[in-house]
């Protein structure tokens, strides 16, 4: 066998044996830009808030990891939830987050978003800081993203002016959990998503 063939064989073997390249912050950033672009596109054309929320739902379900969000918002008490309670809590929390997120937009008013360099905060974790100019005010909004393996990148938290959405709900759920356990958390979530009487 010619030496060049042997070298090529070794080189290809080394290439095949090397692990897959780790997901980069740039990938997360491009995923975020695409997702936010979809959201802004919907906000631009939605005639009213209810339609906006309804149209945003499938997009948000695709780009946000509501499972991870709910787990972390509940905290260590999550281990004491039954499967049914976990399922219920995730469903209600998903509704609440979608309502909160879509409530931040006024149909027709579009934010101007400036993306800053994405920062890797751990294996498979990236933060993308942005500056959002909306209705004449400037906000620092940081998106926390995680590589979910086969699912790809997902948003796991949104931090507005230093206030993390998940940390905020976490303090609220802690109080509920201390007062009445998993049932109290699920009941509080159910109450918050049910229409006001």
């Amino acid at each position: 066998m010619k030496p060049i063939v042997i070298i090529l064989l070794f080189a290809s073997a080394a290439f095949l044996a090397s692990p897959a390249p780790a997901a980069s912050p740039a990938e997360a950033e491009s995923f975020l830009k695409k997702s936010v672009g979809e959201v802004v596109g919907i906000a631009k054309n939605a005639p009213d808030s209810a339609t906006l929320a309804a149209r945003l739902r499938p997009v948000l379900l695709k780009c946000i990891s509501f499972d991870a969000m709910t787990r972390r918002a509940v905290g260590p008490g999550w281990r004491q939830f039954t499967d049914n309670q976990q399922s219920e809590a995730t469903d209600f929390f998903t509704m609440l987050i979608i309502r909160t997120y879509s409530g931040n937009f006024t149909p027709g008013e579009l934010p101007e978003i400036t993306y800053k360099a994405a920062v890797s905060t751990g294996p498979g974790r990236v933060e993308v800081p942005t500056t959002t100019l909306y209705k004449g005010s400037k906000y620092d909004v940081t998106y926390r993203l995680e590589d979910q393996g086969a699912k790809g990148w997902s948003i796991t938290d949104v931090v507005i002016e230093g206030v993390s959405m998940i940390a905020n709900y976490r303090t609220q759920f802690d109080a509920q959990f201390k007062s009445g356990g998993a049932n109290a958390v699920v009941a509080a979530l159910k109450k918050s998503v049910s229409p006001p009487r």
Partner: protein
Amino acid sequence: MKIRPTSAEKLPRTLRMPVGRPLFSFFAAVLLASLHGGLASEPFASGVVTITKDGILRPVPLVDGKLPKNSPETFYLESALEPKPRRASADSPSAGKKKERPAAPSARREAAKPAPPSKVSKKNPVPAKTARELPTVTIRRKSADKKAPDKQRAVRNAGPDDDLEEYNKAGRIADPLEPANRCVFWVNHQIYSYVFRPLSKIYTTVLPRPVRSAVFNVCDNVEFPVRFVNHLLQLKFDRAGLETRKFLVNSVGGVGGLIRMSDRTPALADLPPADTGQTLSKWGIGHGPYIVLPVLGPKSLRDTVGLAGDYALNPVTWVSFGGIGGATALAITSPPAINSMSIRLDAYDAASKNSIDRYIALRSAYVQSRENAVSK
């Protein structure tokens, strides 16, 4: 000549096999059996069973591939039934080792009595099986699986448990005065809802956005001494220098601060603000207890002290206490007050809307926001 009947002819007509073709008949029998789900290796091949009174699983024969109609029995999917190990009997060796709960007094008395001789016949040392000793079965609820499939739940729980601890410390502050704070919070909420919100609505309706922005810019520019002094106190001399540049650019180029000319210079566009509370934090002073101040809202003890410092450094306060007339003082202090109220209401709404507990949501948002400001 009388021919003796073959063994096949002695069999009932339905089970009679053609004698001359044994291989074909074997395959035909196997095929028929498999079509009827009657293969010996798969006792419940139809997948549907009933449970007898004795707890025995009995396969249900299908009629033309369907379950028999009008049957009084309940059918179960065989796959939904799983054998459950029977509870160890009182006299089994493992029972003595297990002590789950302290027994009731009467039960303890029973236990103290000598155990009755077991009913084991001399001929057969193994106790006879009774209906009670048959393996019990548990019925898995398929409906629950449909709602949250095992696979889905596995994914939901797949993350490492460490992530549950991630937000353990975020947004926490000592709140020993919580009952009193909640009362003040409630009063503030009423004031915000019935006084400030209508005023803010009038303000935003009467003044268009560019005018409101100009008012905000002037107020922000006037508060320059608060930021400048605190940058110096935090030993951030470069920021104090940039702050001075920003003030001069906006005051001169921006017509007394009406226009933020500094936004056109990248170095001056995003200067983090500084206040006395931040300075105290930089000096190592902790939050102290959480306090809800009347009208002003959430504060920590440290930031309440800081607020006094900010008032002292604010030129608007100097003018108010400078011996000017009441009308003039009102004219000077009103725009920043209304402007600040409008911003405060926006922040209040953003933090409290869609909350589970409005008081805790505001407290957490306040603490996180302050920590973010200090970290800049």
